[in-house]
């Protein structure tokens, strides 16, 4: 019977509206804003339950910190993380094991929400946001290239970064497209570089620095160094921070005739 009902055609206007509740921390609300700006659903299709965020623990970093032991259970007590592990009880300071993106988070409180839970979280350290990028920019071009290929050589193209990314939702990703075939399917390393480059480039004005891609990467590719550069450029060139407000539309979908920088244009 249930199956029969599911097969029945319902006119769009008779369809019951389903509202989805989302428990969202700061970066999740940024993702939601991007989805709303890209018209993936309407604002009243989601009920946003905002929660302030003190940062997430970086699982890989934690594992290294406790010497590779398996964690059985853990509790947070004050600034300390207490765990029962296969190696006995361990305690680490929470601030030592937070994910990199959380340490320099600028939006740790929800930007939009229908309901807020708890009191606003204290600010993290957003001033240090681009320190990594600035340091990398100062290196010579050959050093930068060497670092890029070194990182991309680790990539096994499992596409975990894409699957985990809240901004990657194209029905057909360019990776799977075969006409034209943007990315070769062999194990050629330039294909991996091109794949990564283009996935990173697709994050212009869309990366919310949630750290999902970094945390799911099985090979530990340093994606954040490149994503942060895109974020920095976007802010410097178009003064846009991805998903920072509903009014600030995606930077590549608009233009500003009088203020867009054109100094990169070649003039013989």
């Amino acid at each position, binding site marked *: 019977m249930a199956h029969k009902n599911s097969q029945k055609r319902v006119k769009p206007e008779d369809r019951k509206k389903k509202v989805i509740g989302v428990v969202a921390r700061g970066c999740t609300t940024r993702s939601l804003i991007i989805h709303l700006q890209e018209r993936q659903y309407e604002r009243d299709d989601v009920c946003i339950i905002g929660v302030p965020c003190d940062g997430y623990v970086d699982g890989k970093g934690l594992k290294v910190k406790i010497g590779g032991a398996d964690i059985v259970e853990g509790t947070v007590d004050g600034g300390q993380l207490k765990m029962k592990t296969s190696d006995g009880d361990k305690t680490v300071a929470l601030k030592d094991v937070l994910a990199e993106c959380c340490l320099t988070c600028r939006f740790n409180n929800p930007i939009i929400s229908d309901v807020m839970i708890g009191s606003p979280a204290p600010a993290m350290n957003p001033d240090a946001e681009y320190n990594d990028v600035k340091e990398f920019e100062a290196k010579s*071009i050959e050093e930068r290239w060497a670092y890029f290929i070194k990182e991309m050589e680790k990539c096994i193209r499992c596409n975990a970064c894409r699957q985990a990314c809240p901004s990657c939702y194209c029905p057909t990703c360019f990776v799977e497209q075969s006409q034209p075939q*943007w990315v070769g399917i062999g194990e050629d390393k330039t294909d991996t570089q*091109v794949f990564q480059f283009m996935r990173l*480039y697709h994050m212009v004005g869309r990366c919310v620095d949630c750290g999902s891609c970094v945390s799911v990467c099985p090979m530990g590719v340093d994606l954040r160094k490149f994503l942060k550069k*895109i974020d920095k*450029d976007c802010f410097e*060139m178009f003064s846009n921070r991805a998903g920072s407000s509903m009014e600030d539309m995606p930077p590549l979908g608009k233009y500003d005739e009088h203020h*867009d920088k054109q100094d*990169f244009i070649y003039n013989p």
Partner: protein
Amino acid sequence: MSENSANKEWEPKIVAIVCNWCTYAGADLAGISRIQYPPNVRIIRVPCTGRINPFYIVKALQEGADGVLVSGCHPGECHYISGNLVACRKFAMLKSFLNYIGIEGDRTMFTWVSASEGDRFAQVIRGVTTKVKALGPANKMVKKF
């Protein structure tokens, strides 16, 4: 082929992706006016620079182009009103990001050439060819076939 070209000076291969309404017409004018410019450039005509997927540029670099030139109408003169301005933002990001990962900025060039600027078109091609020549053959992100 490599034997023949071994003693010749190396010549760069440059892919120029140009818009139909301005730069392509400008190139046409350069041809009609018999202005000489280096033959290193392979022109691809697209309806508008806004039509160019940044992937075209990355793909061209991967498949062995030593340089990529993108050229469209001057700001405010786009046949489709704002295609070049939207493209301008895309390219600003792309160029900066390519440079960040270590691909020389001079390999990807962006410029505006209008339909009446045959002379400028020849100048641009000369300039780009000289710059790419100075960099030498592309060896980053180039696929070996």
